[in-house]
């Protein structure tokens, strides 16, 4: 057995062990930490499968942003967790839930095992038409050219998620700012870290977006890194979340899907089809759309993390 095969098997076992630990961990916080580790290990798995784009997304979203969201949720639930210890679900309920989980897992495993060895694939067609888009990265071509309508809808879902989070605000806080206020004296360690990291992270985020046309990367991964920089600045309390009724904020939230949709509709008039790009101009149009998507993602994810408004809006 070669060294790489042994490493792959070890990695798979480790992923499995961390998944099991996440399920059986005592308390929400420990489970969340397990889940973040699980996400990071999964991104290594994706790298071993030569899917670097997926690995980047998994690390940024699966490990990073989701991890922050879940840690925030766990911290808020800690109080409730302590007071409801006696109200844990009964044995029958647990057994039922366990059976259901095993059933779903078995069904999924069965489906995966029943797949034909040579699965149906559109990869050759995708690669064949790639030059027409002017892009070098087939993943970006699938996201923004071949299946652009799916991608628009994904971005609309993100906007809806922000609306959902904001709707949890009390009436008097509607339009106010979420999260903690900017501190007079920010936590020194975290503030130092944020000040050192943010300039590097912003450059890396923009770079990942820009190279996404030809190499692994893209709007989502780049936007997620930019979002992480804003999140860490807010966590260090060097800055505070803007008021949710700020016009620029709402514009930035919808800029990505709006520009994307407008480009799709313009395709009807210019290129003869919904989401068709005029030949020769596909790459500049795709990069133009992606730039606005980066902006929207970089604003949407921090707003999801910041949570519902918790202060009265200033007039």
């Amino acid at each position, binding site marked *: 057995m070669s060294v790489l095969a042994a490493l792959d098997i070890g990695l798979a076992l480790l992923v499995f062990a961390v998944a099991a630990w996440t399920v059986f961990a005592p308390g929400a916080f420990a489970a969340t930490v397990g889940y973040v580790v699980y996400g990071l290990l999964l991104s290594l798995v994706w790298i071993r499968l030569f899917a670097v784009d997926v690995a980047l997304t998994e690390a940024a979203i699966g490990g990073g942003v989701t991890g922050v969201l879940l840690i925030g949720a766990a911290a808020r639930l800690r109080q409730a967790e302590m007071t409801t210890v006696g109200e844990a679900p009964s044995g029958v309920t647990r057994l039922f839930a366990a059976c259901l989980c095993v059933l779903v897992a078995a069904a999924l495993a069965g489906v995966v095992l029943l797949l034909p060895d040579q699965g149906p694939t559109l990869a050759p067609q995708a690669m064949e038409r790639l030059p027409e888009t002017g892009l070098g990265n087939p993943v970006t071509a699938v996201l923004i050219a071949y299946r652009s309508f799916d991608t628009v809808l994904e971005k609309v879902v993100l906007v809806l998620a922000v609306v959902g989070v904001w709707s949890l605000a009390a009436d008097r806080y509607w339009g106010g700012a979420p999260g903690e206020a900017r501190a007079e004296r920010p936590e020194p*360690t*975290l503030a*130092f*870290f944020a000040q*050192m*990291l943010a300039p*590097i992270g912003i450059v890396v985020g923009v770079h990942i977006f820009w190279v996404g046309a030809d190499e692994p990367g893209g709007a989502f991964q780049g936007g997620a890194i930019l979002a992480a920089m804003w999140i860490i600045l807010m966590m260090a309390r060097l800055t505070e979340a803007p008021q949710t009724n700020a016009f620029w904020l709402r514009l930035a939230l919808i800029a990505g899907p709006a520009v994307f949709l407008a480009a799709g509709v313009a395709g009807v008039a210019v290129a003869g089809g919904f989401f068709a790009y005029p030949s020769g101009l596909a790459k500049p149009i795709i990069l133009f759309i992606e730039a606005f998507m980066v902006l929207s993602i970089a604003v949407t994810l921090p707003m999801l993390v910041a949570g519902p408004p918790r202060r009265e809006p200033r007039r």
Partner: protein
Amino acid sequence: MRFVIDVFSVAAIGGGVFFFLAGTVGLLRFPDPLSRLHALTKADNLGLGLVVLGLLPRTESLLGALELVAVWALVQLAGATAAQLIGRAVRRQGPAA
């Protein structure tokens, strides 16, 4: 020349692996959070540092070498910050936590 580089790489990466192993053993065996943190930072700092040092002569370009050093520096920054934050939380809650 090739041979010298190979020996250097094996020695440095082997040293790095040793520090990762020692750090992991320390993380599992040390009695309290602060000394566990101490063990962990050795893995970050020396372990990764030696692995990067061993890989440096094998990079294809200067840019690749700089990328490796940058990765190490960023891990240093993140590791040191996390260790400080955890250390502070431990001090606030008392060592029993």
